[in-house]
């Protein structure tokens, strides 16, 4: 038996623009485009379910403080520095 990856078609309107996660307001649903960081960090984020193409909700964006995002059913806290490196649309 073989399993293969499904080609999940992104359901995002084409005219959205790329921006760092740090600028996204609380409550918005965004899609991860890319992570402009080292491989180690990228892999660590992927391990926690954050990989390009996945959608998540910003639960909390505190000015100057860390973030909380909802990735599927889990809540993940992200430092502000890292939020600058995560590009979303």
């Amino acid at each position, binding site marked *: 038996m073989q399993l*293969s*990856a499904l080609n999940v078609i992104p359901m995002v309107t084409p005219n959205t623009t790329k921006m760092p996660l740090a600028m996204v307001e609380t409550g918005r649903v965004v899609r991860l485009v890319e992570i402009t960081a080292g491989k180690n960090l990228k*892999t660590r984020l992927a*391990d926690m379910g954050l990989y390009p*193409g996945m959608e998540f909700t910003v639960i909390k964006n505190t000015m100057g403080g*860390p973030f909380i995002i909802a990735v599927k059913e889990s809540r993940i*806290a992200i430092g502000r520095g890292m939020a600058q490196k995560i590009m979303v649309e």
Partner: protein
Amino acid sequence: MRKNKMSSKINKITIALVGNPNSGKTTIFNKITGERQHVGNYAGVTVEKKDGYCEHKGVNIHVVDLPGTYSLTAFSLEELVARNFIIDEKPDVIVDILDASNIERNLYLATQLMELNVPLVLALNMSDTAKLRGIEFDLKLLSDLLGSPIVTTIGHKGKGINELLDAVISVAEDENRAPGIQMNLGRDIEKHINKIQGLIEREQKLTEKCSPRWLAIKLLENDKEIHQENWPDDIIQATEKAVRRIEEVLGDSPEIIIADKRYGIISGACQEAVRLTVEARHTYSDKIDEVLTNRILGLPIFFIMMYIVFQLTFAFGEIPMGWIENGFAFLGDSISYLWPNGSDSLLLSLLVDGIIGGVGGVIVFVPNIFLLFMAIAILEDTGYMARAAFNMDRLMHKIGLHGKSFIPMLVGFGCSVPAIMATRTLENRRDRLITMMIVPLMSCGARLPIYTLIIPAFFPQVWQAPILWLIYLIGIMVAIGVAKLLRIAVFKGESSAFVMELPPYRIPTLKGVMVHVWERTWLYLRKAGTVILAISIVMWALSTFPQKTVYDHDYDAITEQSTNDYLSAIRGLNPLLDISPQSTVLVDALHAEYNMIEEQQAFHPFETGFEMAEQKKNKTIDRLVQSEEGKKLAVFLEMIEQISVVRNNFDASIEQNELETGTTKYLLFDQEKDHTLEAIEKSNPVIYQAAVKYIDDIKSPYDEKMSEINQLIHSEQMTYSIAGRIGKGIEPVLKPLGFDWKIGTALIGAFAAKEVFVAQLGIVYSLGETDAKSDALRQKLQKDFTPLAAFCIMIFCLISAPCMATIATTRQESGSWKWAMLQLGGLTLIAYILTLVIYQSGLLFGIGI
């Protein structure tokens, strides 16, 4: 143990539990093994190892709880430990615990286990919560898609545990296990995997342990650990070429592409077998988070929580600590009754001062550790700990630490031992080690007596509080500096990004909390405790040997001389009492008392010899009272007794009420005392005068002289001992800091426990028992040191060598002596340099000299 594969009936297997953090893995582990578990560290690393046993359907199952991980890459030590265990120890079955509410992310680890092609059982845990959230599973389909048996469990209720063990045994018993499902990572990747795999298959030596396909994937993923293997050049070249090709064609590094593919496969399987009947709602956890991670409320709530934790650990812990201390004091006394009173037997000293003192020094921390870990377990099990880290992250990040480092650092102000144990809450090895290293810089409670002794002796009232505050602040500043230094020098290049999962809030179970608390306490007693005990005995020996047999002064002769002077001074009272100058009644009576005390020293109060000595004295006195001048003698003795009682009562009430001299209450007691004494005086003014003269001018100086001789002997012994010699030996090194050998010797004592510094200083200054409030010791210190040197003593005590219990705990918690020695040596070095700079610049600028 797969050797047993040939027989269909097995009786002994090893299984490993893996799973994401917060997947309920530990709860399942506790349910499976019950009380039969064991906690330790993996050899040489800071990662905790837990295992236990259980029996199911006649099969003995050895259960190993591997560290909670999201993945099996080689990025963190936890993941590496888990992966190496699976590859090297080849457990018969791997059980992957999945959080059913968060199935996709949790299956990511499962896909990596499938790549390793190991016998796998999936436990869909917390299935009740998932059901509540409207998640439905087609278990049969999901199991077929993933090629592994799936069992639903509800960990905290113990549901599904038997079914899980059934599945484990049937997988273990399956002789002809079909090779697991091979995931198709997409044509672009697969073709490279196939090529490298083909090359690897030729290398038999390398494929013994794990599958060639897995090795090929790991090579492509640029896995550090796998790349370290001794690969032939053609494989390295092929890998490099493949990595370049993938980056060109797919625009990202292979590990990211592969991760993406794995998620794609999971997503595909979940679309078929998992159904969400209700749209994901704003859950109760998010609502609690609104408050607990609130911008304004978050920090105050956090500080209140921390205050409660600190109070619970130390204020509440003080009560049982008092019992333990009293218990050990009682035990020491009881044992000393086996020897004649005042015996200087070495064995007795070893038992009481070395062993009982040492064991007591170990046990005394138990209430702190117990209560602290109870608080921590509750914070962790409820899910608040992650929020605490979230709240503190901004602040802690600035000083290069993790938000969770705050708790150990706070606890460090109470005591370093539980604080270092509390670093276990930090998952990351680097954060944990850095925190462990700097915890002793938080000035602990045992160092306070040193400051309270020194500060009032050298600084005017207005400066006392700021100086104390400054010392604590210097500790924190040095800690920040050390943390930055370690980050730059030792742990450079390791990512410091803050990403952390916030688990949903849960209600902790009593059993879960108690298992956690018991593990910690037991671990402390068994590991740190034995080291502390051993060092205690060494410290005892250092201050006991070599024993001085010939003293510098002939103390026996001095004693005899003083006694003779005392007796002749008594005879001088005869005229005052109107007794003939030649009469010896007075001398005989007081000599009888002296003899009684002398004789009683060899006995414990409950022994007959003790009472016999008293009877002997009474007989002599009775005989003397019968004599011609006996009547005056009787009045005189009675008067002495009365005056002493009144004075003792006064002193006792002052001490009991902790009254300062000159306060109104003090004056009231003083007046009352004077009235009573006046009444006594009126009854016989002449004899009263004689009695006062005897007490103040004859007896008190004599008693003082006797205790001084005792202290001189003690002091000579201490100076002669190894500790004293080391103190003297290091004097040249300490001189530039403004210290002398006495401070050196006290510092050696401080290694046993910081508060010993004060007592040891008292001994070398021949003051006998001293505490932090001893004015006599303060006067001696004022003579020997300048305020600058005194400040330097405090700074050195703050930063230098943490006490042995701290070192032993660091050794235990870091898993190697290396870190413990770095802590001991590094902090002492920093203390030396800093104190040197402070002292020398103080001298240069003429501050505090």
